[in-house]
């Protein structure tokens, strides 16, 4: 289905109903905004699967049940398998007009759940997999994941005198998903909510597996004031450290290709997880960013 065939969902016409409400996420949590907006687009007839991680932890605190639609916690590595089972099981029961969605963290997706996810895409299950990326294992107290960027201070990659935080770069999750020739994949950021809403809406109207990698602020793990949670997620994109892109029909598309970038330093040094970075560390981060953008500009669009 073409982009233009789908009725656009905007703040004016989006449902007034809330499906993720009264949850116990920290104030200013970007992951909870990603879940909230996605469910408002997908609607009440949605089965949500959440593996271990903050969004399951804050939504299901007995006797509280912050999901207003159907929702279930899966094993940590098995979110995509459980969603696959729900999707085909509901079809076997004759259910129509329903969606199955996963909300998993970066750890639950790029590291622990990647095998089940790869299998689901291979079988082209009719599910939407949303990875909210707060760049570490937050629910267990900030450990490095495969999506933690270079230089990040976490409890497993401390900032010492010799080693300044994480020494690896973010895993290329979006391209790994695209390499499966998945029906639809996209990256998004809670700093660009309309773009995120559009992509969830596109995934909703895609038959087969969709994957959305959404950049989601964690004020607690990043060490920022809660009120700048949306601003910082926008600056991550504007500084070129995160990018907005889509993949469909073997084509990559950059949704945003800025002529100049927001200063990386201004983005990084607002956050206590990056406070220790030296000018040289920042140069390494910029260099890596520039290489990535050179590649994307040359090969995508």
């Amino acid at each position, binding site marked *: 289905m073409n982009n233009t065939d789908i009725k656009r969902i905007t*703040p*004016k016409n*989006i449902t*007034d*109903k*809330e499906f*993720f*409400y*009264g*949850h*116990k*996420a920290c*104030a*200013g*949590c*970007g992951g*909870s*905004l990603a879940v*909230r*907006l996605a469910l408002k687009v997908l609607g009440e007839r949605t089965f949500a699967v959440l593996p271990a991680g903050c969004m399951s932890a804050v939504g*299901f605190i*007995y*006797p*509280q*049940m*912050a*999901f*207003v*639609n*159907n*929702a279930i916690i899966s094993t940590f590595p098995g979110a995509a398998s459980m969603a696959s089972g729900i999707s085909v099981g509901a079809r076997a029961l004759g259910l129509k007009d329903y969606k199955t969605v996963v909300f998993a963290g970066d750890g639950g997706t790029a590291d622990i759940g990647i095998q089940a996810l790869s299998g689901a895409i291979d079988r082209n299950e009719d599910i939407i997999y949303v990875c909210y990326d707060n760049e570490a294992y937050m629910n267990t107290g900030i450990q490095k994941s495969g999506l933690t960027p270079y230089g990040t201070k976490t409890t497993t990659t401390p900032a010492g005198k010799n080693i300044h935080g994480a020494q690896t770069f973010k895993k290329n999750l979006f391209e790994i998903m695209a390499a499966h020739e998945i029906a639809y994949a996209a990256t998004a950021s*809670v700093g660009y*909510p*309309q773009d995120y809403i559009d992509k969830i809406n596109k995934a909703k109207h895609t038959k087969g597996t969709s994957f959305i990698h959404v950049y989601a602020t964690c*004020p607690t793990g990043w060490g920022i*004031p*809660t*009120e*700048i*949670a*949306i*601003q910082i997620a926008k600056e991550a994109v504007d500084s070129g450290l995160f990018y907005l892109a889509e993949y469909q029909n073997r084509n990559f598309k950059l949704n945003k290709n800025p002529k100049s970038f927001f200063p990386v330093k201004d983005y990084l040094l607002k956050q206590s997880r990056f406070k220790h970075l030296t000018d040289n560390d920042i140069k390494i981060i910029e260099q890596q960013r520039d290489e990535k953008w050179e590649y994307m500009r040359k090969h995508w669009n």
Partner: protein
Amino acid sequence: MNRPKVQKYVKPKHIDDYPVGPQFTAGFLAETNAGWRTFRPIIDKNLCINCLRCYIVCPDGVIFKSENKVDVDYDYCKGCGVCAHECPVNAIKMVKEELL
């Protein structure tokens, strides 16, 4: 109902009172989140241009449309301040709770 409300939680006395699954029914909220809040967002309806920016970016979904303006469900607002920070016309002020 657009958003669930707090409900009275009666501690089960008998095995039959427990939910069938590990959770109570969808949207069951046994307590509010208001106690988390240090600063309260106050919306100046004269300044609000109804752009709905705060409504879209609220992580808790506590801002709702009301008579061509917006309002806040203070039972579940945690006072993160994102709405006030994102408002393009500064129609939302964060006021310390004990001063109210």
